[in-house]
């Protein structure tokens, strides 16, 4: 085989493998926030670990070693964030830079926003804002747009 083609082939294989490479991140955290439309803000203190494993197709996350792993399909991925959809159609937002995971669930007519991962004040700030958007008749897509905007700040 032509040596040039050999090199090109090696580079192509290397790029394909690295672009598909799985990344696994574990973040210790001590506060987990939940903001329920009906019951308000709830903070749970503890010694937790958020483990997120992702590639271009799948995002797996586990809030603590005691809970099962949630497997989601990646919908959108940038170098700053990942949006994935769970089996029950919940949108999961993971901020890669801030190592924070957010999602919104709906039970009958009431929404609950969840925020877990690094930090405390930012999680509280963002889950509060997520529910504020819902209270102001915004859609789940608007909530995701808000999280994207926050994750895109490079500081």
């Amino acid at each position: 085989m032509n040596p040039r083609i050999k090199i090109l082939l090696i580079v192509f294989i290397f790029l394909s493998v690295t672009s598909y490479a799985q990344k696994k991140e574990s973040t210790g955290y001590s506060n987990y926030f939940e903001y329920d439309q009906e019951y308000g803000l709830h903070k749970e203190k503890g010694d937790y670990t958020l483990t997120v494993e992702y590639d271009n197709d799948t995002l797996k996350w586990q809030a603590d070693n005691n809970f099962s792993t949630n497997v989601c399909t990646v919908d959108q991925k940038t170098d700053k964030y990942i949006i994935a959809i769970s089996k029950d159609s919940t949108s999961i937002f993971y901020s890669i830079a801030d190592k924070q995971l957010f999602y919104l669930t709906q039970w009958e007519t009431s929404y609950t926003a969840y925020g877990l991962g690094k930090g405390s004040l930012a999680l509280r700030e963002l889950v509060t804002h997520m529910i504020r958007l819902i209270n102001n008749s915004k859609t789940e897509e608007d909530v995701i747009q808000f999280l994207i905007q926050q994750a895109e700040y490079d500081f």
Partner: protein
Amino acid sequence: MRLSAFVISFSISCYSYSQSAIKSHYTNAYHCKQEGECNAYGGGYKQDLFIEFDENQLKWTKDIFQGFTVCEIRKESEKYIVALLDELYVYADLNNKSIYYIDFVHDKYQTWGYGPDTSIVNNRVTAMIKMLENHATQKDVMQFLIDQTVAEE
């Protein structure tokens, strides 16, 4: 021996090159409380303000004998620095040689500012708290300060 002397001298040169210091001053500290008042503190006489930074840390103090407040830099340009201290953002405006920061006390935000141009500092500290009262995030407030600094050019 010669090599070690070179290494030491090179390290000192690198350190002095990467570390920057700004001596500034302020006449009043400006402070606003969420859903509260804005006030000026300091008596209106000239007081020192020291700002130091390298590529990792922003340090600032009003009193060099009390030591510096050390913050982790998140974004740095020739005109400004965005830094974090215990999840609260600190902003150094290098054009105006001023410092702004957000505090969170009893579940409410507070904003502070120090710098030589009292009018600019007062306006920004007031604008920062208004943004937080209107449910902006700390990051939104930092972006506002960046936009202000850049727009001044």
